[in-house]
């Protein structure tokens, strides 16, 4: 049989007409509405955190017995570190010690964002290492996954509470304590990604092309893990901010002099019936921040890695 001349049939073949143009991945991300809205909200929050000293605040540790339990909007006096007394409008009211809630809430933004980001980064870093090791070294896999299962079996908040109780609350210990329970989930994710990508024909092709293992790991496997990890990272960030607030609220988190939203709310528990503003203002900020991060995560997931929707 005559083999058909390829060039002659190129014109008739359907293949030639089927090439589609696709938008680049990052363009899609930027056009996604969830990412835009969340991005805007977070930009505002970061701006607030950075500009805290210039937003009409005072040092959040300052207090004045004469200005206790003021209703939002009232003006009162506050004693600065130098001993002078200045007049100040307590936009969000004051707590039972006479501290300005507005200042504490604004400065609290810093703590929450720092905790969120650092916890996420720490959990991701350790989780990636464990996950890569587990996925590539079969002998390590069994033991490591059992340990991760054990760690996951203890509810995250309990681990965080116990660890902070042991190590005494400070920013570093809180961050580590919150990041630790998140490591197993990242490990599992990376491990399953490694195992599935290893099966892909293009990885097999790389092996037969003589590519050494480390190049395969960093050149083929990791880049395809980035998208799900970014999504997972945002969710860890949101969770960390929440857990930090819960810990502080229960009194087992950061020390009371560091202004965090949880601490402010913890103080306000006693007076809730009469002065709910102690709880609501920081609560609203907390909810908005976590909401923004979650929406960002959703948007990123929808554009970068839709398959993740069903992974818990």
């Amino acid at each position, binding site marked *: 049989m005559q083999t058909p001349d390829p060039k002659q049939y190129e014109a008739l073949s359907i293949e030639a007409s089927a090439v589609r143009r696709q938008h680049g991945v990052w363009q899609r991300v930027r056009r996604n509405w969830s990412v835009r809205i969340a991005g805007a909200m977070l930009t505002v929050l970061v701006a607030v955190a950075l500009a805290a000293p210039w937003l009409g605040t005072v040092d959040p540790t300052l207090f004045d017995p004469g200005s206790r339990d003021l209703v939002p909007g009232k003006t009162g006096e506050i004693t600065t570190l130098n001993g002078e007394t200045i007049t100040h409008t307590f936009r969000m009211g004051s707590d039972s010690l006479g501290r300005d809630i507005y200042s504490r809430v604004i400065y609290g933004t810093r703590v929450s964002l720092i905790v969120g980001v650092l916890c996420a980064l720490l959990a991701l870093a350790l989780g990636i290492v464990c996950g890569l090791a587990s996925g590539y070294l079969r002998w390590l896999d069994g033991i490591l996954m*059992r340990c991760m299962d*054990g760690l996951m*079996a203890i509810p995250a*908040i309990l681990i965080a509470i116990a660890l902070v109780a*042991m190590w005494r609350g400070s920013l570093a210990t809180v961050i580590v304590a919150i990041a630790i329970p998140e490591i197993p989930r990242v490990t599992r994710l990376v491990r399953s990604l490694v195992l599935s990508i290893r099966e892909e024909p293009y990885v097999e092709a790389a092996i037969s092309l003589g590519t050494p293992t480390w190049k395969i790991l960093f050149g083929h496997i990791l880049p395809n893990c980035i998208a799900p990890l970014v999504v997972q990272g945002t969710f860890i960030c949101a969770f960390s901010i929440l857990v930090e607030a819960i810990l502080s609220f229960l009194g087992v988190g950061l020390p009371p002099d560091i202004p965090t939203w949880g601490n402010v709310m913890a103080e306000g528990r006693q007076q809730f*019936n009469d002065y*709910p503003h102690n709880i609501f203002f920081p609560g609203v900020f907390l909810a908005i921040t976590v909401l923004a991060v979650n929406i960002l995560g959703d948007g990123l997931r929808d554009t970068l890695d839709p398959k993740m929707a069903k992974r818990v």
Partner: protein
Amino acid sequence: MVAFLARRLLATIPVLLIVALLVFLMLRLTPGDPAAILAGDAANTEQIARIRASLGLDQPIVVQFGIWIGNMLRGDLGESFYYKTKVATLIGQRLEPTLALATLTITIAILVAVPLGAIAAWRFGGWFDRSLMAFSVLGFSVPVFVLAYLLIWFVSLKLGLLPVQGYQRLADGFWPFLRHLVLPAITLSVIYIALIARITRASVLEALGEDYIRTARAKGLPEARVLVRHALANAAVPIATVIGIGIGLLIGGVVVTESVYAIPGLGRLTVDAVLARDFPTIQGVILFFSVVYVLINLLVDMSYVFLDPRIRY
């Protein structure tokens, strides 16, 4: 099938061992000497040594672990520094409120979330779906205690419908028991509903995209049957999985909810123990919660056998 169940049971033993090890180690990682902390600042070396011996802290660590495990298996979780009673007794006393709260929460959550998620998937992209997703994100984002205070302020203080705080035992009457639990259960269930609804929606959506749905429609079956008997039935395994895993979130939420609503349950016990640095109690409660979590997930694993005939090896 029995072999499968037996294997799942055996597989939990290493996990439980590791949990025990982690809990044990967690509290040995304290900087400083637990005996000295317990004895207080005014104690002398003799008193500290006596306390150390009574706690068994002078033995090598492996021996300590062995003794501890042995005690655990006999039901002896040690004695609380703070309350001066056996930890096991403490847990027994505080168990009922937590159990009641958890059961009510789980029931509400499953009954509400699964149908909502299924319908959202069925009407994918419509207003119901978008509202549910928005609610779900909110549910994840508003912290449990903020929501609790919101509800308390609105329902109890402003509307006076339900009591603000406290707990009534079941033995003292069903109606007051329920009234005190409604608000806490609703508060706690929000995050659980958000999680389950999301996963239900995603799983049903995935099932609806499968070929057998097309076959079912090609057979002329009504949509309701296609949705329930074909889509939801295949989504059952991921949904059951997330119900099991969500218990972890639930336990965390219980700790906070009991704190806000002043319910004398295990969650409150945990917080109080941590504030008092009562190590045996902290250990005991965390161990208890973890074992329960593992066992519930084991039950979920075993339920797969009934949900998916392929899982029977």
